[in-house]
Structure formats: C-alpha cells, structure tokens
C-alpha cells in the first residue's frame, strides 16, 4: 500500500494556477523530498493532501484511502509556519494536540516525557509556550507531529530556523522514523538536506512536475562526462581527455564521448601517479534545480 498517491491534482486560486495536473506517489518506509522554489505550489499540494484545501480536480489517497478521521490519526503534519497556544504549558499543549490524534491523555503524557527527554527539553515541560525560544518551540511542534506514532509524516520546511545542533537532532530522529518503516515527506528548498536525507524526490515549479524519481538516478542522468582529480606531480597528456579546468584544490578533466572515467583512472594508476581524490563529477541537486528552474522560466 502506498503512503501517498496523488493523481492528476490541480488547484487554482482567483488569478493563479497553483498546482497543475500533478501526480506522484510515496511508498512506506521512504524519505521523499518535495522541492521547488518559493511559490512553486509545494504548500498548496500539501494542504490538498491534508484535505485542508479541496483540489479542483484529481484525487489524493492517503494510506490507501481518502483522508478521513481515522487516516488523520495516522499522519503527522508540521506546517511551514509554526504556532502553538502561547498561554498553554508545553506538556498541556502536547497532550491536547495528541488527544486530537486519538491518543489518550495518559499515554500522551508518557510519550511526551520520553520525547522531551530525548530532545533535551524535559526541564521546560511546565513552561508556557510563550516562554520558549523559537527553536525550542519548533522542537515542541515536531514532538506534536510525531507523538501519535504516525505512519506518514509531512514536514514543510522542517529545518527552517533551527540551529545546527537541533538540525542534526531532527535529522537523526527522521532517519530513525524512516528506519521504522514510516513514510516521510520533506518539503523544502534546502537542497543539501534533501540530498542528504531523501531517497526519491519530486521537483515542482509553477505547480508543474519538473523532475520526479529516484535521487541517484536523477543525479546520474544529469552527470556530465568529466572527473574531478586531486593529484601530486605532473599530469601530462591523458588519452581521451579533451580539456582541463583548474579549481581550488582539484582539477576537472573533460572526457570525450568514447572514454569512461574507469579508463582514465586505470591510465593514471599505470603511470604511478599519486592520487588523493578521484571522483566522477556529479552535479549537486542545487545545480540541477537551478538548471531546471532556469530552463522552465
């Protein structure tokens, strides 16, 4: 059963098409990146998945069925812009929002204590939300998102505004959740995070599908025929290399269409060259993103 199945979904607002015939699916146990520039339609797509907005056309299936009260209890949603009841205590906020996900108060308090302890926030459990820093509030909101042990997590810009320590903490927790077989959807424009965490991605721009599929396959598709090399000594003539570009700390070698990186590596080793780094040049997701978004616009 797919965690999410979005089929030809479209949504327009008064003067703008926000999402245009979008289809994708997310499997269980998968970390899925939903990426795109600001205003690409990511949040609208998520809101349609959450049944907060109704699509103009198309269908969304969550955990095998149309979103209903029971499925709502099995998903966790962290919206892009965060907020909790400012006057309420941390533990009461968590318990109330967990109760709306069908968790009884006793289990909610127990699990909340465990998660607060795990995130180093146990000492703040009786503080009011308004007394917390922004980052701490965000951690609390993340706890609210996962406290009911959801099968599907949808996180809109989860790392925005977090310091490096909390970012690492969150990444670790997300990896654990994925390993437990949960589906995680990360919506973000921070490409490095997606590159590090996600198995598959959907890149959208102007509400349309730009790139969709396995991250490593996509990167391979965008791979140019060049290698990155850091070496000692004189490079000299290398068969099949049509050009050289020197960067700080390494040299990029452009290969002709008949030559593979393996052949170049074998040649260099046969010459007894000291090689510190040899890497098939792969564009970063950021570069692919800029290229694709630039192409479409």
């Amino acid at each position, binding site marked *: 059963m797919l965690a999410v199945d979005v089929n030809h979904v479209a949504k327009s607002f008064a003067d703008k098409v926000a999402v245009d015939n979008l289809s994708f699916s997310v499997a269980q146990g998968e970390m899925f990146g939903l990426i795109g520039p600001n205003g690409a339609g990511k949040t609208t797509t998520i809101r349609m998945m959450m049944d907060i907005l109704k699509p103009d056309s198309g269908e969304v299936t969550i955990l095998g069925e149309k979103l209903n009260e029971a499925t709502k209890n099995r998903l966790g949603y962290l919206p892009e812009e965060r907020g909790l009841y400012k006057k309420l205590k941390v533990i009461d906020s968590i318990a109330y929002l967990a109760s*709306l996900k069908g968790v009884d108060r006793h289990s909610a308090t127990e699990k909340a204590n465990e998660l607060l302890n795990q995130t180093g926030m146990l000492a703040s459990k009786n503080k009011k939300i308004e007394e917390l820093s922004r980052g701490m509030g965000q951690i609390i909101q993340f706890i609210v998102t996962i406290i009911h042990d959801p099968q599907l997590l949808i996180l809109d810009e989860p790392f925005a505004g977090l310091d490096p320590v909390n970012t690492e903490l969150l990444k670790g927790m997300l990896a654990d959740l994925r390993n437990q077989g949960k589906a995680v959807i990360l919506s973000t424009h921070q490409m490095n995070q997606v590159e590090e965490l996600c198995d598959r991605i959907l890149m959208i721009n102007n509400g349309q599908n730009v790139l969709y599929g396995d991250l490593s396959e996509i990167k391979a598709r965008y791979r140019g025929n060049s290698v990155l090399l850091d070496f000692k000594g004189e490079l000299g003539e290398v068969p099949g290399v049509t050009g050289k570009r020197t960067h700080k700390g390494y040299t990029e070698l452009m290969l002709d269409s008949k030559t593979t990186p393996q052949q170049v590596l074998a040649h260099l080793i046969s010459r007894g060259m000291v090689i510190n780094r040899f890497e098939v040049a792969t564009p970063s997701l950021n570069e692919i993103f800029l290229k694709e978004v630039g192409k479409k616009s």
Partner: protein
Amino acid sequence: MNKTLLILRHEFLNAIKRKAFIIMTLIVPVLALIGIGVFQLISAGESPVVEAVTIGYVDEVGGFDQYTTQGYVELVHFDTPGDAKAALINGDVSEYFVIPSDYLSTGVINRYTLERQLETPLGIATVIKNFLTSNMLAGKVPPETVYRIEAPLDLVTTRLTETGEVATEQGGYGNVIIPGIFALLLALSLQLFSSYMVEGLGNEKESRLIEVLLSSVSPRQLLTGKVFGLGAAGLVQVVVWLASLPLLLNLASSTIGGFFSTIQLPANFLVLGIVYFILGYLLFAALSAGVGAISPSTHEGQLLVPIYALLAFVPLWFASLLFVFPDSPIWTVLTIFPVTAPMAVMLRLGVTGIAAWELAVSLAVLVLSIIMVMFLAIRAFRVYLLMYGKRPAWGEIIRSLRSG
C-alpha cells in the same frame, strides 16, 4: 473521547479560566451582596432626622391662615413681600411664596427661592397645593372630605386570570427589574463570548495552529467544538446569575423590604432565560465564527464584532418606549428578528408577557437563522481559513459563499 468533545472541553476550560469571564460571572452576585450590605450598614445607624423646613408666605387675598403645619414643613405668615424677602435673605425661611390678590381668578402663585432648580420640588409643590386647598375648603366641607380632595385616589390594580381568580403574577415595575437587568447582562455576555470566539480563531490563524488542528479534525468538528465549548462556559455564567437571583431577592426583600419585596420573577422567566441565552449564544457564536473565518487577524475581527453585537442592545434602547406603548408592533418585530430576539423577549416578559404565537415564531426564526448562519460560517471557514494578512473583498466573499 470524540474529537468534537475534546475541542469543546479545551475551549470551555480556556474560557472559564479567563479573568474577564470570572469577573463578569461573579460581579452580579457580588455587587448585589455589597449593595445589601451597604444598605444594612446605613440602616443599622440612627435613622436620619428629617429637618423641619420653614417656608414663608404672603397672603394678599386673605383667609389663608389655617393648616400652617404640613408634615415637616412649617408655613410662616409675613405681612409684606419685603418682610418675607428679608427673612429669606437672613435665612429664617428657606423660601417664600406670595398669594397675589387676583389668585382666585388666575391661580398664579409666585414662589421665591435662593436655589437654582430645574423645577419646583414635588414635595414643596404638594405642600403649597394642600395648604391652599385646605384653606379654601375650610368650613365648607367636612375635614375628611378635605383630605380626600387632597388625595383622591390610591389605585390598587389586581390582575385576574381568565377564570376570574387573582393571578399569581401581578404587573408593576417589580416585574421589570429582573428581566431588565438580565437582558442587559445577556447582551454583555453575548458580546463577551463573540469576542472570545473571534479572538480564539484569530489567534489560531495568526499562529498557523489552525493547520495543525485541521490535520487532526474537520472544520465542522473544530467549529462545533468551539461554539459549544464557549457556549457551555456562557451557560455556566448565566446559570450562576439566574441561580443567585432568587437567593439575592429573598435576602434583599427580607433585609431591605419595601420595593424589593414587590420584585417578582415572571413565570417561565428562568426557562425562557436559559432557552434564549442558548439560542442567542449559538447565533452569535456562528456569526462570530464567520467573522473569524473571513478576518485575517484577531484585531480586524474584533473591529467587526460590534456591528452585530450592538444590534443585540437595540431592544434596551427602546425599553422606555415599551413601558408607554407595550403593544406597539415594533415589539413584535424585535421579538422575531433573531439578533434582537433574546433581549426583546426578556424585556417583554417583565412588562406585558408575550403571545404564544410570537414566542413560537421567534424561536423558529432563531433556530432557522442559527442553522443558516452556521452553514455559511463553515463554508466561509473552509474558503478563508488559510488566508492570512489580507481580508477578501465583500463581493468576493458573497460570490464564494454562493459557489461554495
């Protein structure tokens, strides 16, 4: 527990912990107790001695020389206006009047005083009138007749039931007091809870918590929970008021007596009070939910609340008119128009009572309006919930409500 109930409980607990709620709820019994206490403190002291007043008069007609003691007022005769004026300036008399020689044909009496007054105090006018009447009739009719002419009427009205028995519920101002006060409190309470509703929704929109809530519950569950949660808190408030009324009245009539012992609670008042509170509340809550839905911020929502909240007070503005023209058709209109119905019904209960058909129509219209407004509010909620920072134009709102 059902999610609607969870939201209801959360909203109820939040509302009753608020300072404004606690103050509003307790202020009625506390103020009444303080009032009774203050009265007892004052009346426990020596009863005030009514100071004798001396009024001068000049009789240019002749014959006005008897009955110079009228209650606490002593009338002193002066020969000329000059003497009377001198006595007034010396402080021997507090004022004087002249019965001019043509009094019998004109009826004019000239009164002189050092004080600036809006009009002659009723007590003084009565004293002068009785003095003149008594003297003019002296010797011509028996003294009892003189008294009767001075006070010809002590009207005692008794309301009978249709079977001719004395009705348990009699008229009079004593009947109006409680429904009047209750109507005012009801309107204030409706306004308070309208602003709670708009504020709550505004905060959830501003903090974007609404999205988290809607990922757990449906807009209908959220709105229903909020409306009934705040409604339960409102009901607690009204029940505290209504329950404290009979107790306070007993206390007041036994310690103060007088007018307080004539105060009655109209029949059906408690029942209709609660029914109209609940329905009035639901209508206002639904209106407020709609306002909360289309307003981008708490602040802007709060600005819209008075538009309908003030309508609730309209029957109170016309209350004095009700006493004079209790059968005016305007009262039927105010009783049936849903926003003014709760207040209009409370006020009319105390004055004249309300025909059964009017109550039936009023309740039916109120219930229908609640259903309609709630339906529109949920629609507006769904459409405008996620609009932050910018309120849609009215034309756009109406269009989207039509199309859904």
